[in-house]
């Protein structure tokens, strides 16, 4: 049957509709961009809620009321965190004092001597015309520039860190309310759907919830295991700041490929600073290589699997965008958020396929 011209929607009304939708989308993006720092609270709260939800469900399944179960979990975390801080405070202050007592000047002199030896060895392989540079001079110039930047930027950095404190402090509150009322909010949103799309939407949201939850908990579990293995490994080789470095390596592991490089950099720098020799970096590098081999071949495939693997290009783009918009926290949450978006898009596509097949 041919559609009559007067049955077709007017081109001008289509253009107006498209313009209105694009305008709404632009306003929404601008609003989100303006409140991006607040968004971090919601993202962190959301991730925390997904990690804690199985524990709360477990308590509720044993007869505890949900709000009491949530309060118990938060109380245990607060007491545990406080206890860990109280117990580790003497160790941290001791390490800071040992760092202060270590003569940094002596360490730098020893590193300069090693660099000079490396300089001589490298130059012996080069033609005479290419020998008018000095590794020691280059390293000293770079180190001085970095030191000047750090001294100039330190007050700004401190203020920046302080300004993030309330944003991060809001995350547990957001997590609490997501755990308490997340289900009823989701239910209320689903109730608004028209009858035709109600069942597919309910099913889709449930599947997304399950997949996203598994992915986030898997990432968190993997990061904890990597941190634990790194802490043990660094302790064995005698690195002084093994707990802090191990925890940093575990957190950086969330960023595939690049997190590994960050971890090597941090642990090598800590070892060089401790021993005052470049070859001191071999120990931490060896530990991290072993940890990564175990992670890539055993832990990762078992816990996360291949279902939410992201390409290196996607990871790089998401890390760059996350870092640009939200700083250091953006670097850490960029990959999990990208993984979640991939899960959502995949699930929506699968459900649409399922419903379109049934209509054939």
């Amino acid at each position, binding site marked *: 049957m041919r559609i009559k011209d007067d049955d077709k929607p007017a081109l001008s009304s289509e253009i107006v509709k498209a313009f209105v939708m694009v305008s709404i989308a632009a306003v929404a993006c601008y609003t989100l961009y303006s409140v991006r720092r607040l968004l971090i609270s919601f993202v962190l709260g959301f991730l925390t809620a997904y990690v804690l939800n199985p524990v709360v*469900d477990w308590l*509720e*399944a044993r007869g505890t009321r*949900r709000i009491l179960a949530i309060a118990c979990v938060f109380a245990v975390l607060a007491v545990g965190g406080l206890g860990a801080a109280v117990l580790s405070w003497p160790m941290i202050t001791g390490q800071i004092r040992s760092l202060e007592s270590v003569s940094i000047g002596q360490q730098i002199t020893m590193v300069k001597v090693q660099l000079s030896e490396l300089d001589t060895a490298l130059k012996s392989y080069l033609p005479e015309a290419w020998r008018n540079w000095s590794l020691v001079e280059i390293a000293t110039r770079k180190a001085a520039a970095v030191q000047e930047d750090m001294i100039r930027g330190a007050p700004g950095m401190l203020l920046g860190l302080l300004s993030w404190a309330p944003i991060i402090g809001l995350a547990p509150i957001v997590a609490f309310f997501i755990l308490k009322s997340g*289900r009823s909010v989701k*239910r209320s949103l*689903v*109730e608004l759907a028209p*009858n035709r799309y*109600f*069942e*597919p939407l*309910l*099913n889709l*949201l*449930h599947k997304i919830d399950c997949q996203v939850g598994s992915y986030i908990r898997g990432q968190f579990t993997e990061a904890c295991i990597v941190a634990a293995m790194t802490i043990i490994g660094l302790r064995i080789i005698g690195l002084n700041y093994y707990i802090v470095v191990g925890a940093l390596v575990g957190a950086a592991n969330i960023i595939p490929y690049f997190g590994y490089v960050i971890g090597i950099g941090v642990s090598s720098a800590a070892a060089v600073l401790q021993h005052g020799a470049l070859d001191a970096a071999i120990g931490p590098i060896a530990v991290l290589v072993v940890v990564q081999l175990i992670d890539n071949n055993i832990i990762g495939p078992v816990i996360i699997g291949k279902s939410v693997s992201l390409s290196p290009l996607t990871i790089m783009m998401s890390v760059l965008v996350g870092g640009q918009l939200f700083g250091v926290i953006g670097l850490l949450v960029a990959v999990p958020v990208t993984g979640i978006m991939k899960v959502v898009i995949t699930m929506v596509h699968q459900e649409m396929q*399922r*419903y379109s097949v*049934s*209509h054939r």
Partner: protein
Amino acid sequence: MALDPLWGNIFRHRSAGREAAIEVLKGVPLFEELTHRELVRVERIVHKRHYRAGETIVRENEPGSGMYILCSGTVEIHQATRDGNHRHLATLGEGDFFGEMSLLDEETRAASAVATEDCDLLGFFKPDLFDLVERDPRLGLRIVMGVARMLSLRLRYTNRQLREIQDSAIRARQTAGDEEGAANP
């Protein structure tokens, strides 16, 4: 007379609606062994939907997620035939239910359900059942056993009907054979 917003019991309507839903749930074999407290929990997770006359509730061959229970109105169940027509299977009224098989499997709907007049239905879906199993395993298991029991009863009834049809077919063949034998001794 309109209720006074300060003094009138404006909540009576809401609680009456809730009690009516619990009464409807009690009539479903799936929930007949639950206590009142458990029925209140189930009432909180079912979805109340309204369908206008002529609106399709479930479509044949579409993926299903759960069952529907009629609070009011009438629903017709029909199935498409090979020649493109529709075969009427049943007319359901208040307290009746359909679609319970979708609670257990991922298969598509076996028939379509269309509201013949304005209907209010309670929807009980698989995601909510799975959620209930995690949060209250005892209640979740009782409901799952209820679904299994209902499907078992339907299977036994179907077996009985099939046996009766087979017996009728055997009797008809025997009668035809006897008649043929009598006609050609």
